[in-house]
């Protein structure tokens, strides 16, 4: 029969607030549309995301301005573009990967 691979992944949630308005200085990749998680793939040097020093490449976006994301990039883009002066995001950061 089929066996499933169990992944025990430990992660943390990081809360970040960026001020000042777009551009925020990071690149998003993936999304439910592509069957991938929504990941920060690039942080622009000197940009607002880089200045806050809290975000890292590989962080998965899970919450924007208090709204939990269901995974769609379209959704995320709309929410981000809707932020005017203040952008509050929560990212999931995978710390370790254990494979059983």
């Amino acid at each position, binding site marked *: 029969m089929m*066996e*499933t*691979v169990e*992944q025990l992944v430990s992660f943390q949630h990081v809360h970040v607030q960026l001020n000042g308005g*777009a*551009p*925020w*200085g*990071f*690149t*998003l*990749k*993936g*999304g439910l549309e*592509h*069957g*991938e*998680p929504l*990941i920060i*793939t*690039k942080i622009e040097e000197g940009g607002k995301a880089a200045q806050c020093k809290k975000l890292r*490449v*590989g962080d998965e976006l899970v919450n924007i301005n208090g709204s939990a994301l269901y995974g769609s*990039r379209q959704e*995320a*883009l709309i929410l*981000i*573009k809707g932020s005017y002066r203040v952008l509050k995001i929560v990212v999931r950061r*995978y710390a*370790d*990967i254990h*494979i059983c």
Partner: protein
Amino acid sequence: ALIYEMTIELSVPYDNGYEPDDYMMQEDEWDRDLLLDPAWEKQQRKTFTAWCNSHLRKAGTQIENIEEDFRNGLKLMLLLEVISGERLPKPDRGKMRFHKIANVNKALDFITSKGVKLVSIGAEEIVDGNVKMTLGMIWTIILRFAIQDISVEETSAKEGLLLWCQRKTAPYRNVNIQNFHVSWKDGLALCALIHRHRPDLIDYAKLNKDDPLGNLNLAFDIAEKHLDIPKMLDAEDILNTPKPDERAIMTYVSCFYHAFAGAEQAETAANRICKVLGVNQENEKLMVDYERLASELLEWIIRTIPWLENRVPEKTMLEMQRKLEDFRDYRRMHKPPKVQEKCQLEISFNTLQTKLRISNRPAFMPSEGKMVSDIASAWQGLEQAEKGYEEWLLTEIRRLERLDHLAEKFRQKATNHETWAAGKEEMLTRKDYESASLMEVRALLRKHEAFESDLSAHQDRVEQIAAIAQELNELDYHDVASVNQRCQSICDLWDQLGTLTQKRREALERTEKLLETVEQLFLEYAKRSAPFNNWMEGAMEDLQDMFIVHTIEEVQTLIAAHEQFKATLPEADAERQAILGIQQEVLKIFQNYGIRGDLTNPYSTITTEEIAIKWDKVKKLVPQRDSLLQEELARQHANERLRRQFAAQAHLIGPWIQARMEEIGRCSMAMGGTLEDQMTQLKQYEHVIVSYKPNIDRLEGDNQLIQESLIFDNKHTNYTMEHIRVGWELLLTTIARTINEIETQILTRDAKGISQEQMNEFRSSFNHFDRKKNGAMDSDDFRACLISMGYDLGEVEFARIMMLVDPNTSGIVSFQSFIDFMTRETADTDTAEQVIASFRILAADKPYILADELRRELPPDQAEYCISRMPPYTGPGALPGALDYTAFSTALYGESDL
């Protein structure tokens, strides 16, 4: 009476205070006379001279001067001879002083020989003519010879004379002779004296007190004329002197005495005789009186004593008190006169005896039985009887009082007790406990206890009542019969109450015990009937329990359980009977002991009827269940047969499918041969598989039967229809997919220009790292694979890659994905930048593109796709309808710059 008279006589006062000792009196007078009052001297001189002359005239001589004429003593001696009637010694006839002294001494001696003590009178003073001495001497003579011998009623001398005067003048109201001086001043005394003896000589009634002079002179005159008493006093002298000379008056009055007394002698003699006879008569009368009085008194005593000795008691206190009253009357009214009489008797006796003794008569001897001693002893007897009687009266009264008190006390206590006892009998014989509950009986017992203590408290009282009755008996109460009767009835009732109390206690206790037993039985019943009822309820439930069984074993288990249950029935029945038995016992107790209380069990609502009904039901349900179970068993056997059938089939089909799967797997993993060869083989397999379908259908049919029979499991096989179905479908899909994979691989090979060798290499690597040999790599396998290919992967990067190769997070990497990944890596990939650059060209270097431009450059459907997907461009200098191809591109490649 005698005593009285004497007492009165004795009360006559003498006012001169002289002692009746004449002899001494003379000397006292003599001493006093040394201080003779001139007035008195004058009176005395006159009176004494006249007196002497009244005597001397019988001798034919007189004196003129009292102090002179007696100096030679001759006339003195003569006087003495005349008044005494005796001869004196011959006088001396000389004239010499000593002759005179001798004569005077002879006279004085004569006086002394008559018993008069002449102490301070000497012959010399007389011879010398001493007036005082001479007067004194004459007075002594007068006293001795004229007054001394006066005896009136045994009183003599001065007192006798006074008494005589008083006696004689007693009838004369205005005459009160108390003395021999002032009493005579008004002259009435003398007149009275005269009138008393010789009423013919004086008309006393005509005399006036206010004319003393006249009275005196009249008396003097008459006395001189008719009584031969010469005048010796001077009326004026008497009147003028406040206190006339006593001696003078005595001297003059003594003459009256001698004058009348003589005349009285005959009278006195006759009187004496009369007196003696009278005394005699008197004495005799007294004797008679004594005898009579004595008799009367003794008779009275004799009558009275029995009355006092009467000890017959009266019934009531009132009557006794009346008796006491009578006694008091006796003491107050009847006895005192008798006391008086007795006293009188004694006095009479004493007086009589005295009189007889005085009058020289023999003593009085009362007749026999009437002696003073007899009377005294009879009297004593009376008094003793009295005392005894009084004592007895008081004792009796006390007794009756006590009896009355006791009787009243008895009545009161008896009434109280009877009141208390009323109704108790009825109360004690009540049968109220027969239909009472246990609680009520206990309450009755408590009440009874209280009554018992009340009863014992009354014990004392009953005893008291009896004690009082006893005392009444002892004290001889008059109505003791009714008392005894009442006491008896009280005591009888008391005993009765005691008995009834005991009986009631016993009955109550017995009833309590029975009810307690019943209580216990009820409890027992409740204790056992409840679980039994539950058991029956449970049994009924179990027996009616809808069961769903899927195996023969289950049915058999149920059957076994049922059999076990049936085995417990006898025991249960026994319990049922026991429980019913308890109720029977309660019934029996009620019937046997006539308890009329409530039969319902307060501790249980489960009636015996209920138990019976349920039991019957249980009994009925048992065979019902038996048959049900048997039916079920049959059914299960049938099911078993179906199962077996299915199993047999499945055991053929399952492995066949497995074989086919393996074949396919092996084929897909095969290294040698071309993809086309693989395809051909796979197509062959497909055909075989499709032809096998009827077997599946048949199994489905069996399965349907199984399902219709509600068979949910099959221990004869691990294969379920689902398994087979799934396996079958998997087989179908696997073959289809594998074919498709091969097709894809062919396509990919053709599209990417991968050679067969490359393909074989990929396949070889894949198979190598497919550790589990199931046509797919898990993440571990994949990781190992990547490492072997020289990838230095961090966790994040690897995760990313996994996301790429296994976007559906199925956990496995298929060969196709693997190829895709591998070829992606090596092939020239279009990046988002390249696409953006391409769009820029189309947009003529603008940062945005217009819909027209898209339509112009791209195939219609792709153009529409872009138009609909591209977000509007919001940057500077945008025309309306500008589209952001950058965002779109990055989004395409899964990247958005923000």
